[in-house]
């Protein structure tokens, strides 16, 4: 069993959903990201999403755009992000790590080489925002071969027949983008989310996690109950940014993020 399926099997036994924090790799530097990964896992993050910075993040709102810019300034690139993952895996063989980003940095690294090295470093899943199903055939097959899950994105406006196509040979879990919009801007209400889950459950037996627009502990709790997990990204980054001095981390940075994370974890476990 993969780390992802182990994780969701354990959550099912505990009868609760996953809390999935997101960090932008190297925001604002390698050390902070590396320490945050360890601290988040230790604190009880069920899975962690690691954003791979891109110069042109067309699906992201201002918070993640700025995070990506800081990260690129700090020297983020795919080889170094994979090093960070491998380093994290020295002490943690349990918490699933999902890389989320855009296609071009992967293609320039070499798609096949990237899939090999990501699997070797200890990455469990990939979310490639600008790679729709139709363009993903080769990557999907090759990722599967290497034990990596290519996580499909679904949206409120995805028609039922398209959902079935996207999900028929999916693995790992399904990511539900709960709003038609960019990251960290607005939120879906619970009714909309419930309706969406009914549609999605008809198309897949995989766990479904909800992301885009989840910022408060109450929203995380609702999303993790209605679906199988909640991704919190921009809200955590916004908290983190309040601790920066001229875009650099301070001693308050990690405690502040972890404090916010704890509140989210308490909410979904209550």
């Amino acid at each position, binding site marked *: 069993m993969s780390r992802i399926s182990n994780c969701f099997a354990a959550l099912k036994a505990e009868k609760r959903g996953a809390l999935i924090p997101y960090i932008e790799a190297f925001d604002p530097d390698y050390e902070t990201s590396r320490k945050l990964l360890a601290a988040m896992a230790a604190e009880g993050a069920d899975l962690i999403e690691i954003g791979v910075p*891109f110069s042109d993040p067309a699906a992201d709102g201002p918070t993640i755009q700025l995070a990506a810019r800081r990260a690129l300034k700090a020297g983020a690139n*795919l080889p170094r992000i994979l090093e960070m993952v491998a380093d994290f895996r020295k002490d943690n063989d349990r918490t699933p790590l999902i890389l989320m980003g855009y296609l*071009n940095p992967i*293609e320039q690294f070499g798609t096949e080489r990237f899939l090999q090295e990501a699997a070797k470093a200890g990455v469990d899943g990939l979310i490639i925002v*600008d790679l*729709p199903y139709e363009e993903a055939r080769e990557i999907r097959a090759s990722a599967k071969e290497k034990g990596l899950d290519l996580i499909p994105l679904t*949206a409120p406006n995805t028609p039922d027949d398209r959902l079935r196509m996207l999900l028929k040979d999916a693995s790992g879990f399904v990511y539900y983008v709960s709003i038609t919009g960019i990251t960290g801007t607005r939120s879906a209400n619970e009714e909309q989310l419930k309706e969406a889950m009914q549609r999605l459950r008809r198309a897949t037996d995989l766990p479904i996690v909800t992301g885009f627009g989840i910022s408060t502990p109450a929203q995380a709790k609702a999303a993790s109950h209605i679906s199988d997990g909640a991704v919190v990204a921009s809200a955590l980054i916004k908290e983190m940014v309040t601790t920066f001095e001229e875009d650099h981390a301070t001693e308050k940075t990690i405690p502040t993020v972890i404090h916010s994370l704890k509140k989210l974890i308490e909410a979904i476990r209550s």
Partner: protein
Amino acid sequence: MTNSHLKANSLRTGPDLSGHFGPYGGRFVAETLMPLMIELEKAYEMARRDPEFHKELEHYLRDYVGRPSPLWHAQHLSDALGGAQLYLKREDLNHTGSHKLNNVMGQILLARRMGKTRIVAETGAGQHGVATATVCALFGLKCVIYMGATDVERQKPNVFRMHLLGAEVRPVTAGAGTLKDAMNEAMRDWVAHVEDTYFLVGTVAGPHPYPKMVRDFQSVIGTEAREQIRHQTGRLPDGIIAAIGGGSNAMGIFHPFLDDDSVALYGVEAAGLGLDSGKLAASISRGRPGVLHGNRTYLLQDQYGQIEEAHSISAGLDYPGIGPEHSWLNDIGRVSYVSITDQEALDAFQLLTHKEGIIPALESAHAVAYAQKIAPTMDKDKILIVNISGRGDKDVPTVAAHLGVTL
């Protein structure tokens, strides 16, 4: 490289059904946009096959845009260069002053058919923004134009024009505040307003079906030029020259000639301060294939796939990518992609103004500059068509500054 369902002997039937020109093009967008892309493709295919749509478009192109645009035999310029005869395709004479309105008129009629009430568009120099704001005024549609903050600053007259036309101009501060950042922001707007909004892309780039659709609407340039040159000279030209940012004026004039092997095609990229200066916008000369803004194509990028900022004296060429069909035409060798520096374009700008009384856009001056290079190497009975994609009034302040003149 074309798929088997295409006629092997024609280069004009692309893209394939999934929107690819060889390995280029395609549809690389977030899942939220996929239903919209599929809807757009269907709506366009229906319109394309509907004679009523073409009739309506022809009416607006003739009576509002002012088509056909003339093909002018530039005898004085030809004599001065002492070689091939130069013919200028006068897209600068269209309403709003550039070729942009050809495409915008087609897409706005499509948007109306689709029942969309809000239009968003990206713009660099502001020509596409002005064209879009113009048709939104004509049809009473809400119009939001995304423009890089840097471009807003250096293209003030066009920003004011858009305001006059009733459009809202939103400056984009992300990145370097130029066209690529405006494109990102327009896509974000579209994702957030999927119900009522139409994204009116200004060039032959972006996710399928935009490269094909914009090319089809711009092909009126080449279709007219073909008739006109035959009428005036009794034959096809020996070469056609057009400037390339995203590449819509070039694709528009090239496409009807792609299967005419005797016609050499030259796409002129902006070499900025020089091909090895690092300050350029020549995606084919100095880029490599990658994925940005919904398509795979040649891009200026660093070794890790981060997109680089482009530079050109001409804001309309200041883009780190190029339409995917151009990438394919480059790889198969049908079109020669060459480049012209800021300085060469400035010189050509002045030469054409002096010799023919035509002030070209700095974008088009790149095409004129390449003609200036090759015409003297050709016999006097050879014929070159140069696409004058826009008029240069908007560039007068820029040119004055480079010539050390304070206005």
